[in-house]
């Protein structure tokens, strides 16, 4: 099939960007979306033009690196699918496809479709962990964990940190991402101990990074490649409320301890 691509091109974080039009010819249905872009890039390089910069790594839907808006939808709109796993059989000959980077103040564009998502790392650094050092831990079976709790924790922990939730949200809210980690760890006895401090610290850094508040419209859940449930945002709100009511004040500016 033959496609028309309108792709966001932006030289660097300081430059202005614009949509450029490219023709993608002889696209095969078995190609992944990124393989289609690879082929376009090979043509551009051969013609002496600059290839389109986009992030990808594992190309099997788990590393969370790939990230682009396709026709305005994060990862292209196939349920539970990252763009690297989206195949061209879902498009048809003659389609025009608009490809843009994640759009959020907290995710500045670095070049073309590549954005800076380090704000997510800073949120985890503020509390998305269990404070145990290496060594000296009890036997793994010393503390039974109910299958339901373990499964719920795993549902939340499946988040790949791609940022699609932020890109889909009209408020650019990161609450699905943050709540997934808060819920994962709060659901397990190992993470239960620090749950109040964790949620307060993570939300604080989330707010400072410039992410907006939850709209409760569920656009995040709809595009999440791991189908993380909106319920976790409710759980985080409960965790946050309880922590506030217990009047615990995190030490200002001291993430991580």
């Amino acid at each position, binding site marked *: 099939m033959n496609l028309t691509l309108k792709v966001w091109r932006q030289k660097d974080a300081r430059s202005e960007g614009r949509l450029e039009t490219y023709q993608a010819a002889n696209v095969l249905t078995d190609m992944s979306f990124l*393989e289609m872009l690879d082929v376009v890039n090979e043509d551009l390089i051969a013609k002496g033009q600059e290839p389109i910069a986009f992030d990808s*790594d594992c190309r099997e*839907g788990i590393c969370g690196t790939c990230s682009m808006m396709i026709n305005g939808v994060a990862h292209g709109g196939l349920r539970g699918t990252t763009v690297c796993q989206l195949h061209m059989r879902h498009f048809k000959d003659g389609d025009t496809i608009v490809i843009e980077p994640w759009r959020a103040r907290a995710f500045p564009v670095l070049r073309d479709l590549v954005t800076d998502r380090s704000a997510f790392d800073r949120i985890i650094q503020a509390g998305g962990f269990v404070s145990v050092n290496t060594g000296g831990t009890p036997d793994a079976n010393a*503390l039974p964990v109910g299958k339901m709790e373990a499964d719920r924790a795993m549902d939340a922990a499946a988040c790949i940190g791609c940022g699609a939730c932020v890109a889909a949200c009209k408020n650019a809210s990161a609450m699905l991402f943050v709540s997934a980690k808060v819920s994962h760890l709060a659901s397990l006895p190992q993470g239960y101990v620090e749950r109040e401090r964790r949620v307060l610290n993570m939300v604080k850094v989330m707010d400072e990074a410039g992410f907006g508040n939850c709209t409760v419209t569920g656009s995040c859940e709809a595009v999440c490649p791991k189908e993380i449930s909106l319920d976790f945002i409710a759980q985080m709100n409960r965790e946050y409320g309880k922590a506030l009511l217990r009047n615990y004040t995190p030490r200002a500016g001291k993430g991580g*301890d």
Partner: protein
Amino acid sequence: MTLDAKIPGGPLAQKWDQHRFDMKLVNPANKRKFDVIVVGTGLAGASAAASLAELGYGVKAFCYQDSPRRAHSIAAQGGINAAKNYQNDGDSIYRLFYDTIKGGDFRAREANVYRLAQVSVNIIDQCVAQGVPFAREYGGLLANRSFGGAQVSRTFYARGQTGQQLLLGAYQALSRQIGLGKVKMFPRTEIVDIVLVNGHAKGIIARDLVTGAISSHAADAVVLATGGYGNVFYLSTNAKGCNVTATWRACKRGAAFANPCYTQIHPTCIPVSGDHQSKLTLMSESLRNDGRVWVPKKKNDQRAPGEIPEEERDYYLERKYPSFGNLAPRDISSRAAKEVCDEGRGVGPGARGVYLDFADAIKRIGEGAVRERYGNLFDMYEKITGENAYERPMRIYPAVHYTMGGLWVDYNLMSTVPGLFVLGEANFSDHGANRLGASALMQGLADGYFVLPYTIGHYFASEKQVKARPDQAEFKKATVEVEALTRKLLAVNGRRTVNSFHKELGMMMWEKCGMARNQAGLKELLQKIPALREEFWKNVKVAGQDQELNQNLEHAGRVADFLEFAELLVLDALERNESCGGHFRTEYQTDDGEAKRDDEHYAYVAAWQYTGPGQRPALLKEPLVYEEVHMSTRSYK
């Protein structure tokens, strides 16, 4: 130069305990005076960086990805082995040790493997304490599954995302240390050289992948945890960015490279669909617990799988290896698949595929139970192929997956360059000629959490070194060389893309140095690779500039290194005149087509020392001495 593996004396089971006592310590207050550079943030790198920072060392960690959470350990699906014997099915540290040595076809270092089995139990405790959501039984205790090459259930798992969950555990431990200011993290930063001062590794040269800026970093030791070199084959299950650059450039600075020819082909990957293919996707080996592998008995059978009656199917693994059946080790399963396809009995496009059939499992335990165990793998299969594997068997074919070879390290995980430590897939030490499933995660975390934190202290306490500074002449010289190389790449301005060279190299390596190798093919490669390399430097076209985010330039640097490294891999394969594990030389096989080892002549680690451009590297041999196990012919029949 001779290799000293520094294997401690005493009985095998007590070596590590005794060694931990014998090693010198750095007192807690002095640890903060030592700085360590950790390159790579996969399981080995992240666990090492976090653990070293917890101990009090100053750590700088580097990764090329935009976040340390994205290293390719994340893609490991099936599980992690540990000798917990929670299932009461006869497992023990000794059995895990023995299975690993045997699985590696008696080409691994005995003492390292025993230590790996010993610390495996601590890893599970550590990960559970971090909040890794392993699968559990209704009683609340941990669940296990079985994996290839073992007759016990010792594999711990988190659905089909075990690598992801273990990596996130290590990433979170690392993040905690970053938040505390104990680790300085450099994402989107690639290592382009290792710097030696007075023969000791004292730092690195790095390129900022966003701005293109080159920077120098000095430390008291350098830890490479940069993964394997599977992408030398272009198509592999590795991430697109995986590369040999850090380990190869370390080799060029003096670190010997061991057993590069030991490459693992994973039997259960999704077959290639066309020329545009950019990478291959693995379907976890755990699928072989419930899936049955078969091909039609007839050649060129064009019928749909459902139309082929039971008696016209060849369940060849069950037929040839009745006691292990579909769970035969990876190398054996892969070659068996190649064999039936070579006979013309392959299925799917190009007839390079075999069926992995779940119909019996669905009949036995129900579709729901199969979905519970493997749901995400079936979903992934459907996304890629457009086929529903609950209704028709999956098509699978072997693909390059893991590289057992790597930089040579001693028992302390130190390379032949003092102060340069190598962990995880980047070293050669634990898997011999073939790695068993669910052992890579185990090794990465063993090295990072439980081995390096001890041995690096011993190095600091034994070798009194002067502090290096990044403005020293050695760093300046390396920077000049790196910058010259970049300019050279951009200046060629030829007519062929970087990717076309990578693809051509990969194709020839897969054809002549993949699942089966022979002398003629390897000799041919030793002619073709230098020719391709020469063409690369005359005719490559690299887009863009140096001082900017330039993915094509990144790729060009990596391909340039693959083009050099490939020759070493082939040379090693040619020199090893035997078949063992993942290294199968067609000249050396038994009458029924199994790998035929030559213990008399090849029971050694081949460590290659770089001797200069265009020169034949020097071969150093570390004899493999087995004190405890008896070297037997591997049999899974």
